[in-house]
């Protein structure tokens, strides 16, 4: 029943087990499909991530193109979130986490102890799984980023940034009359859009989204998905999701991770109708997970 996963984790026993075709699935030496693009916004080469002695990501190389939505899918614990967090160095905050390899943002190295993460995180924003607005007012939530990075010199300027960000996040009409009320008083979907507004307030180039809809109801999810496709015009987006339908709906390319390996990257249409790798096929058709 779970023979694919078994075969992968225990290849030596798989041979004796039977004659099924799927038992012969092994990891590709390199990622199958098209992990590289010509005009890459983010270029990752040979990324390894360790938690202490445990290797969470094995030699992953991937490009994310300008103004493209790349979805990362895979079973729990496959390393997709870990990989996403490499892109704005959020893994630095985890004790004992080590990231090696080349990560370039517009050809500029961003992985390494000498790189300052503060300006990097202004360029690469992040939206988290659970909506996590600050326990401050709606206005303060959005104004926080511009404030700490000194983007507005006058109050009027800040007001404008807040308004544009909220408008872009599709929240302005809902909250314009209660900007001074706590952000945590909004509904889950509104909170998540507030978090997106907060992230885009500092005009980042890339937005990372770590399962942004997993805590939301279907209608709020649909709103966020709609928002993602609108944001694509101005931002490059990398999204980790558990929902394959969501990946299929919002992304242009899909990357499938399995046990810390990047198994396949292909155009989303290709992945969901005729994936190249048997592991991808097994995952998206619900044969293991």
């Amino acid at each position, binding site marked *: *029943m779970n*023979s*694919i996963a078994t075969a992968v984790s225990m290849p030596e026993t798989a041979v004796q087990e039977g004659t*099924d*075709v*799927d038992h012969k699935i092994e990891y590709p030496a390199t990622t199958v499909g098209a992990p590289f693009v010509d005009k890459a916004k983010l270029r990752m080469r040979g990324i390894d991530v360790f938690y202490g002695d445990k290797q969470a990501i094995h030699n992953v190389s991937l490009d994310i193109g300008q103004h493209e939505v790349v979805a990362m899918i895979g079973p729990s614990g496959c390393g997709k979130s870990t990989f996403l967090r490499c892109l704005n160095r959020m893994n630095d905050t985890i004790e004992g986490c080590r990231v090696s390899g080349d990560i370039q943002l517009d050809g500029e190295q961003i992985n390494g102890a000498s790189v300052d993460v503060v300006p990097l995180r202004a360029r690469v924003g992040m939206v988290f799984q659970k909506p996590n607005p600050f326990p401050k007012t709606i206005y303060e939530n959005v104004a926080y980023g511009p404030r700490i990075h000194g983007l507005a010199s006058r109050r009027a300027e800040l007001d404008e940034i807040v308004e544009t960000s909220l408008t872009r996040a599709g929240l302005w009409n809902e909250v314009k009359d209660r900007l001074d009320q706590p952000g945590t008083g909004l509904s889950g979907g509104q909170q998540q859009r507030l978090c997106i507004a907060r992230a885009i307030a500092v005009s980042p180039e890339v937005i990372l989204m770590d399962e942004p809809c997993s805590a939301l109801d279907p209608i709020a999810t649909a709103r966020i998905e709609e928002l993602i496709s609108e944001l694509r015009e101005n931002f490059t987006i990398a999204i980790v999701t558990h929902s*394959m*339908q969501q990946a*299929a709906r919002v992304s242009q390319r899909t990357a499938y991770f399995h046990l810390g390996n990047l198994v396949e990257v292909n155009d989303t249409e290709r*992945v*969901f*109708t*005729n*994936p190249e790798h048997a592991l*991808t*096929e*097994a995952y*998206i*058709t*619900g*044969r*293991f*997970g």
Partner: protein
Amino acid sequence: MQFDQHISRQFNDDLEQIKTDMLEMGGVVARQVEDAVTALADADSELAEKVIRIEEEIDEREMTLDENCTLIIAKRQPAASDLRMVMSVIRTVHDLERIGDEAQKIAKLAIQLSQEGSAPRGYTEVRHIATAVRAMLNESLDAFTRFDAESALKTMAADEQVDQDYKSAIREMVTYMMEDPRSISRGINVLWALRSLERIGDHAKNICEQVVYLVRGTDIRHGNL
């Protein structure tokens, strides 16, 4: 191609069910074609009436299968090979139903011809083409059962031969009719039967295309080979 390894066993069963139902329908349709041709050749109007009766059953099967496929899409949102499986079943069922229609047409012609007396000319051609078409139909359903794209491609190639045979049969029938104008009305009925057989061959070819799509994920319809 394995459809018995989903985490959801119900999903396995659903997919298995539509495949079995479709193949069963295929068996009934193949039998219809055989009976229709026999009725025509032997001028057996009873057999022909049976074929016409059974056609209704085929229509019902088509509707049930369509509904089951719709339900699978709605409930499971199949992807990749599962999605191709459902899609090819829907399309194949459609082709099978059309084959059933053609068999019904042949059966109706058989009734008309049997009322007109002894075996006319042209029956040899009909028999010959019918054999080839039935073989194609059976092979295409076999290929579906075994998910065998290779044999499906081979079967498709056989359609060209059927087309040629059909053309030469028509020429021959035209010659007969010119020789003996009294036989024109009967000859036209035979032509109709030949025409139906040729269509059945085309539908069998479509089924083969679905097998290739199902196994390889590539759409080879309309010459996209």
